[in-house]
């Protein structure tokens, strides 16, 4: 009985065998890269909104405080979205004929709320609480980036769990004094931040352990 396989089969099988491992690795790497890319996380993608609201204009040009619209950010899990009434406190006087504000006026007139599109989306099983962060020295900027320079809002961080854990494991690297929580562009040199951060951790009573327990965010 002759050979079933020619000698070239050895080469083929060898390449197939040893080639499969790197191929799988590459495939895995591509999948991982895709998973971490903005395509999947939604980073830096501008989301269409019913009204092209500019944070840059309201925050930087006009100096409106975050809490003027996001009223419950210090007292509740949700930062709060401004009711149409809040918009109309100014816009009943200013830009009353503007086309881009037509949906706001319509909402005020008809009582139908505006439906914004969420930019920062967390999965159902994650329970984020604005109050707990803002009252303990986590600045708006830490998660929302330079929103004061954004004409249209986009997500500036990946929102992966590993990103949350960076701070939950080393809060001293990111905390800032309470008076700077709503400020933008706050930044200390690394060594100073480490010193200041440790002081703030102690002052605000931030737990040094257990912030990465599952039950802190998942219920």
């Amino acid at each position: 009985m002759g050979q079933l396989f020619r000698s070239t089969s050895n080469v083929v099988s060898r390449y197939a065998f040893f080639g499969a491992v790197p191929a799988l690795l590459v495939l895995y790497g591509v999948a991982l890269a895709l998973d971490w890319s903005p395509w999947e996380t939604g980073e830096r993608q501008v989301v269409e909104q019913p009204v092209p609201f500019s944070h840059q204009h309201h925050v930087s040009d006009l100096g409106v405080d975050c809490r003027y619209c996001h009223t419950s950010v210090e007292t509740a899990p949700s930062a709060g979205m401004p009711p149409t009434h809040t918009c109309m406190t100014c816009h009943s006087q200013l830009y009353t004929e503007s086309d881009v504000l037509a949906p706001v006026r319509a909402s005020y007139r008809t009582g139908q709320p505006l439906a914004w599109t969420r930019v920062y989306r967390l999965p159902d099983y994650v329970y984020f609480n604005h109050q707990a962060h803002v009252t303990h020295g986590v600045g708006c900027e830490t998660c929302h980036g330079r929103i004061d320079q954004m004409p249209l809002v986009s997500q500036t961080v990946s929102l992966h769990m590993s990103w949350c854990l960076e701070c939950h494991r080393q809060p001293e690297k990111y905390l800032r004094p309470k008076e700077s929580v709503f400020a933008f562009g706050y930044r200390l040199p690394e060594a100073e931040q480490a010193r200041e951060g440790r002081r703030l951790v102690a002052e605000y009573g931030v737990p040094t352990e257990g912030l990465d327990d599952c039950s802190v965010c998942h219920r």
Partner: protein
Amino acid sequence: MLPLPILGQDEAPEHGLWRGPADLSGGGEFEAGALEAPSLVGRRDFLKLSGAVAALAAVSGCIGPPERSRRLVPYVDQPGGVVPSVPLFFATAYVHAGYAEGVLAESHEGRPMKLEGNPQHPASLGAASAWAQASILDLYDPARSCDVRFRGKTATWQAVLEAARQMRAAWAQTGGRGLAILTGTVTSPTLGGQIEALLTQYPNARLYRDEPAAPGLRRAALGGVEPVYRVDRASVVVLLDADPLLMEPGAVAYGRQFASRRRVRASSPAEARAATMSRVYAAEPSPSVSGAAADHRLAVAPERLVALAKALAAGVGAGGASVTLTDAEAAWARAAAADLRAAGAASLVAAGETAPPAVHAVLRRINAALGAEGQTVTYAPPPDALPSPAGDPGSALAALTREMAAGRVETLLMLGVNPAYSAPADVPFAEVLARVETSIHLGRHVDETAWRSVWHVPETHPLEAWSDARAYDSTAGIVQPILAPLYSAAHSALDLVEALRSSADTPGQDLVRAQWARLDDAAWLRALSEGVVGGALDEAPAPGLSAPATSAPATSAPATSAPIESSPTPFTLDLRPDAAVYDGRHATNGWLQELPRPLTKIVWGNAALIAPADALRLGLIESLETLRWAHQTVDAPVLRLTWRGQSVEAPAFVQPGQAPGVVTLTLGYGRERAGDVGTGVGVSAYRLRRSDAPWGGPGLELAVTGKTHPVVTTQGHQRMEGRAPVRRATLDRFHADPAFPTVGEPADLPSLFEPYVYDGYKWGMSIDPTTCIGCNACVVACEAENNSPVVGRDQVRREREMHWLRVDRYWVGPAEAPAVVFQPVMCQHCEHAPCEVVCPVAATVHDGEGLNVMVYNRCIGTRYCSNNCPYKVRRFNFLQYTDWGKSPTLELMRNPEVTVRTRGVMEKCTYCVQRIARARITAQAEGRRIADGEVVTACQATCPTQAITFGDLNDPKAGVVALHAQPHAYGLLAELGTRPRTQYLGHVSNPSPALAGPATPRDATPTDETVTPA
């Protein structure tokens, strides 16, 4: 193969505790067939399927969240006081069969999501019944009626108003001739006032009352008054077919009072020696929640209760009648009478609505003779807002039906009642309803009556409309809406009666406000925010002493009982309301259908409860050892019950503690139109009922049909394999040795793990089975709080119920007269949790506060954790149980603080981690530690008897620390080295030294208890 012994195969269960007949018969660790390899799918097919499953899982993982979760919708004009994501609590009342139970409704952005008890309401005292807890599901029930119907076609409320206008015009001529109004119990002063005004306006109209599960036999026998108890003042309680802890309108308050006299603590040896308990005697035909709580429970046929009452009366010197009693009855009555005499005014004798009417007057004489009247019991007019119908209480519906049959009823207004289903067999209401020219039905479902009526108006849920209601002790409370009606066509009884009365179309809010016009605005707002109208501001007759007992006309009420010997057959029919679906009104509620009934643990149906001795005599079983069919996996034989010419067929269920010769069937089943949930579930006991004997009587014939029908009961699920879960002692033993549960056990077991120091919070729980009455309120509260799904009858049959908290029921002693112990079991949050070490993906881990947390998004569904859990408290989503996207109303109901689980995920009790998180964040923001009592779990909050305590074990002042330090505290299965954070207290009972024999619960230590099967 290693010949390992199979647990429970050969040995009798230890300690005399048994959960079901299968335990007694030594059923073994595994179900029949469980040891054989499955043959349906071969290895190759299995691998193919696995590959397909993996591929599909990968595909489904790519599907993102639904687009609507992207929407962010603010208010147009945010109401004051509302902060999105922060719940608000509003005081209102849940109304059950007419009576109010004060609740606080937790509202998330206008969606009521959970009810808690209202501490300021006398019928709640901060706790809530299972029915109140389940009423949230009633609100969001997808099967609710949402449209007006006229002759079977959809109509509008405008059409109702137009019809009402024509009726008003006609009635103005005739004085309302031909108008009949049928209601259930009405305690609402506003609705009562409206109906009375209607009757004044149209003097020829007639009013009828029909309350199927509370026809008012006791009220009639006592001459128009009802007893109101103070169980906390009673050292000796004697119950004759009474269930004050579950079935009375004041049950939640009575539970609190009862527990205050049953709780024993032993912080010091002196306190242990001084511990006292009330002593409870109960005589009843079928085990009830209150009977299970008794120290001496006597199973007797209903007709023997009159004799027992007379014997008690003679024993305490309240009238002498000589009666013949059996030995057991005589001993029971002697001991009870002796204790009653000794306790004097600190005693209470009570009988329920289902007891023979003749006993009530006798008991009132006994209470008067003891001096207890005015102390432990007051007899007061019930809080009904409408006059009680004259004549025999059961006959109102029969009288109405006769009028209808005679054509004298032209317009019939039915407010929230369902007589086409609940009429007794001798009242052909459903047939003659068609002869009524204009029948108007108001109800939350298109039920049996709505289907046959000309008009049907969808009724609002109590959380959707204004009203008011009185509690068992006549305290008034305002019922305020938490949200606008989910369906615009829905209207309240107030709206409908108002439409028939005038064209003003006054809103319900104005009607209620006008009723309480004597409250100024400040008092009105206080009544709204507190949920009760202050006593001084309420003009209701205060519950006080009514006419002395001797003048009660019913002392001469004829005894309806007949001697057992004279009955034509050896069986007595015993009908009673169901512990979950009540008279059938809750049959549409999946939480209640799936709630294991306290004593039988039957779900999704009812069964003919039969005594073990009768089952033997009928040949249903050869011996108690072959009682396999009473287990959930085997079909039960169907019996034909024939009583006074009517028959129904019902599966038989052997009930330990059932009186021989008595067959009990609960009302509320066999609904024909109760939505997807309730239709066709169980057997309608109304088909046996007679209006002159609403609770049945002697003369029942039984026949074995040879058919079988599955009875689904959870009593055999989640067994802990004959270890010593419940540890019991008598009060005498407790005095001498309060550490009885842990005698002979090592204080601390060695461990391979390094000890972990919990220096922050350290959560723990304590449960007191002595005060647990098994009422199931905690089970429903847990479901409501934690978004637990309903799985349905077939899945429960496969032991897949999703209750995080179960109430185990153990029988102790002989099957004829066992004692009962209830033990709520949920995740014990073991410090050395066996589930954690076997999870391959670390989906269940410990957190720094000692919680055994379950991370749903990590879980891959291996179920290893559940296999390794000795408490069997983990629940697996075998299918997509949670209704996703199909019922929009159910989505409104979900607690936004708790993840909704999907198929393939394990879940279990979290110690209400969302409530801990809420308290932690609040405390952190205020820069302090969480105070004791700030975190209250859902089960703890609703418990009428306060049997559950939760708190921080690192807080030396916490109540739970003191309870864990009790000498009679023990960890469940702690001998396995799991170090559970939940601890139980040993069960203590207070039997009379005068009574010995099978009815006496014995002192159960791990060594001295033996089992005596029949």
